[in-house]
Each structure stands twice: as structure tokens, then as C-alpha cells.
């Protein structure tokens, strides 16, 4: 399986999102770079709206993530509840 990744700006908006990613993807590896965080995962990475909402204590729209997104790799599928990055091979 190849690695998918997502990179986010380091700031107060993304802190709980990164926490949510780590909770939902126990095998994900968090790499901190200057002003940015890159999260790698084997084959698949999921960001769940509910987990983020629990951490921030308010309703959250996954599309808000776009404001702090830097780059990503993998095929994407986004719904109201989940944002998934994956490779087929």
C-alpha cells in the first residue's frame, strides 16, 4: 500500500483537527515542519466530522478545512460526515 498524506497549516483551527485525525487513524504519522503539519498514513486516511465536533464543541462543516489545507495526496471522497483520502493500489 502507498502512503496518502494531508498537510495543514499549524494554527488554532487545525489543532483539534489533527487531534481528531490521530484519534480516528491510529496508524497515522504526524510530521511537524515549520508552520505546517504533514500527516502520513498507509493506504487510507479519514477525517470524521463527529470527532472534530466533539473536540471543538460546536457544529463543524468539513469544507471549512479548505481554509487551512496546504496539500494532500491520494484519491479524495468527501461527504457531509467524512473526508477520505485513499489509494486503490
Amino acid at each position, binding site marked *: 500500500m*502507498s502512503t496518502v498524506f494531508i498537510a495543514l497549516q499549524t494554527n488554532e483551527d487545525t489543532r483539534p483537527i489533527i487531534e481528531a485525525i490521530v484519534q480516528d487513524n491510529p496508524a497515522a504519522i504526524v510530521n511537524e515542519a515549520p508552520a505546517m503539519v504533514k500527516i502520513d498514513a498507509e493506504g487510507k486516511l479519514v477525517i470524521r466530522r463527529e470527532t472534530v465536533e466533539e473536540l471543538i464543541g460546536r457544529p463543524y462543516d468539513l469544507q471549512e478545512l479548505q*481554509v487551512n489545507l496546504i*496539500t*494532500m495526496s491520494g*484519491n*479524495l471522497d468527501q461527504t457531509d460526515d467524512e473526508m477520505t483520502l485513499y*489509494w486503490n*493500489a
Partner: protein
Amino acid sequence: MDMQVAKKKLGLKERYAVMTRGLDWVPSYQKMEDIYPYMTYEGIKIHDWDKWEDPFRLTMDAYWKYQSEKERKLYAVLDAFNQNNGHLNVTDARYINTVKLFVSGISPLEYVAHRGFAHAGRQFPGPGPRVACLMQSLDEIRHAQTQVHAVANYNKYYNGMHDFHHAHDRVWFLSVPKSFFDDAITAGPFEFMVSIGFSFEYVLTNLLFVPFVSGAAYNGDMGTMTFGFSAQSDEARHMTLGLEVIKFILEQDPDNLPIVQRWIDKWTWRGYRVLTLVAMMMDYMLPKRTMSWKEAWEIYFEENGGALFKDLARYGITMPKCAEQIALEKDHLSHQAWSTFYNYAAAANFHTWMPDEDEMAWLSAKYPNSYDKYYRPRMEYWREQAAKGNRFYNKTLPMLCQTCQVPMIFTEPGDPTKTCYREVDYKDSKYHFCSDHCKAIFEHEPEKYVQSWLPVHQIYQGNCFPEGTDPTVEGFDPLAAVLKYYHLESGRDNLDFEGSEDQKNFDEWRGMATKNV
């Protein structure tokens, strides 16, 4: 950010369907082929445009909401940066030359990308790609504008940026990025999407933005870091669009595969040649380095691109052949490029220098197979000569590659001691190339590439002097006339960093900022 999330009546998928496909209509009194005249000549076959789906499922209403949030954040930071004389916080004033390179080499491309996506979007009969292209077109003009706004603050204090767009259209090495994008927007809409949307945005953009932006962060340039991140936040959507384009075209018809593969091969190579400028920026121009060009290539192309092409293998797509040559060049690219700029610093819109001892040690460590053997000796020699007062500025113009327009500075794959030359005879003329890949691109579309506006040819033909110049007068100095035509001031905008006005001013201003005068 603390945005209100309104209760939505429709789910994301339904909302996307209603706000894209739902807004489309079938024309009744005009023929489809008259409305979309460019849809067939490239040979791509599309049977069902409704199969297109943006995986982000972003609709225009949401687009405006998030984009305005990004703009508010960006301009708040830029104001703070300017109010606090942020330009004096950069590691050292040599860093500012990367900003000059960026605004004259890259920002004008953002504007051309804006035009390109507006054009491509207009040509596609499917509402899905049309909406995605509209968004990207708007993103790209935003990138051009915010970059100009951010860099304007540097332009108030430092040289070489005052007429960046004029320079972009004229300065010899800037024809490399310019001709790359001109090549893309003059292709058909499908090729444009594969060239810029896929090959550039998906495969190569990480190598452009991530090093520039984390380089800015490392070097204390909050202004550039912020516009870079703001632009990059759109980039993830562009990459997704690029990947979607490829998958969509390939799923539509098996006949599309060979056409798409050829475009991927061509545009990966074209884009890589443009990245020569990024390679030297990373290895030589950032006072505090983030990672070497070679490391960035390994992470973002070999690893990540490797995963991508493995995924696309199910459509029959293979890794572009040029990747083999690029792998051989990764130990040499930045050193050969910086040597060239050091040579031609009299004709550039930024300053050059030779690396100091520490920087050479870093280069030796990052390039154990090549730096000490091939490049350190000549750089030490140049440094010695400069110290003795023999700084040599080359004023003889180099031969350019007809396809990528880079001077023919690259060496044979596998032999870094021999310059690589290729040539083709076509209709009574001889054309020159830096590589087998540039040669093959020309051979496939000679009628396009014979039209290349090659700066060196143009100078020799007398087309790059200010109006009214008489090159036949005694003592005519062609370089001085060319610099006037570029709107560059010799001795101020060009030559070495050492002894430049930028260096002097920065030291003086930084001194004022840290001491009581």
C-alpha cells in the same frame, strides 16, 4: 475561525448535483458543436459528461464563503507584516532574491493560469468541469493579485522588482516559465487540463510551493509564507481537479489512453525543466535551507508520484519515461543552474553570490556523490577569483533549447563532464535541444515549436533594444542596451549581492531597528 454552520436542507451530494448539473440546460436552437467547437480535434472522446464529479463537492456559494475567509486572514497578516517592517526580520538580505525570482517568474504565470482555466472551462460542455474550472480560474487571479500585493512591500525597499511583468515578458531566463505556460494555454482544452491541472498541479506543484513557502517560513518572511499558504489552500482543490480530469478522461474511452500518456510524458518533462529555477533557489538562494532539491524530489516525486502512478496503472498509465533521466540529474541540476546564473549575473534581475564555507559544507553533505567532485572546485575557484578582483561576468549569449528555452547547460545523462546537445533539421533550419525529451517534444509538434520566441535569437536579431537604438555606432554596448529594454538598471538590479545597494540598505536599516541611533 468561528464560522456558523447553518442547518442544511440537502446533503452534500444532492447539493452538489443541484448546484452544478442542476443548473445546466440543453441548447435548443444552436448546435452543440458550434457552442463547443474545440471538443473533438484533440482526439479525446467523451460520452457522458455527467460522470464527472468534484470529490470535494464544492458549490459556488460555499466557494465564496471560504475564499473570503482566506482573504480576510491573509490581508490581516500582510497588514501586520507591513506595520512592523517585517522585511527586516528575514534571515539575511540575500533571501529577498528568492522573492524577486518568484514575482517575476511565477506570479505572472498565476495570471496566465487564470486565463487558461477561464478558457478551458468555457469549452467544456459538462457543468462539473465547468464549475471546477471557474473556481480555479478565480483562485488563480487571486493568487496573482495577493502575490503582487505581498511583494509590493519588498519592492518599496529593494531593487529588481519594480517592473516584474515587463521583465517576465522579456528577460532571457524568464522565457523559461513564460513559454511553459504559453505552450499550455495554446494547446487544446483537454491538453491544457492534463498539462496544468494534472502534470503541474498534481505531480509537480508540491515541489514549487512547499519549498518556497516553508523556505519563507524558515527565513523569517511572514508575508511570503502567508500568501503562499493562502494560495496553497486552493492548491489541494486544484490537485484534486487534476487527478479527477485524468480519471474521467481515461474512464470515458479506451482510445484516450495513448493521447493522455503522451501528454503526461511531455508535461512532466516541461514542468520539471521549469523547476530548475526552484532547485537552485532551494540549494543556493535560501540562507537557511529547508531541505535539498534532491530530498524534495525524492519525497514529492519519487515517493508520492510513485504512489500516484501505481494507482493510475489500472487505467494503463505508466510513470513518464523522463523520470529516469531526472533521477540521474538530481545530483547535478541545482549546481549547474546556479553556476549559470553566477556567470550571467550581469543580465539578471536579482543578485548572485558564491556559497560560503558553511554552505559548501551543507552542499557536500546533501550531495555526497557530486558536489565535492564536480562543483566545489569550480565554485572555490570563482570565489578566489572574485576575491582577487577578477569577478568575471559572462557577456556572450548562450545557445538555448528550442523547447524548454533553458540555456544548453545540462550534461549527458550519466556523464556530468559532458554537455548534452541534440539537434534536428527541419525545413532548412537546424534546431537545438538540451535533451532527448525536449527533442522528442519538438519532433512531435515542430510547427508549434519553430515559433518559439528565443531571447538569445531575438537579441542577436536586434529585437531587444529600446526603440531608436543604433547598434552600428562605435563602442555600442549590446548588454547595456538589452538591460535598458528590460527596464533594469545596471549596477543596481543585477550583479553580485556583495556590494549591492540591497546589502548596504538592509544592513543600515536593520542596524537602525536594533540600536539607538
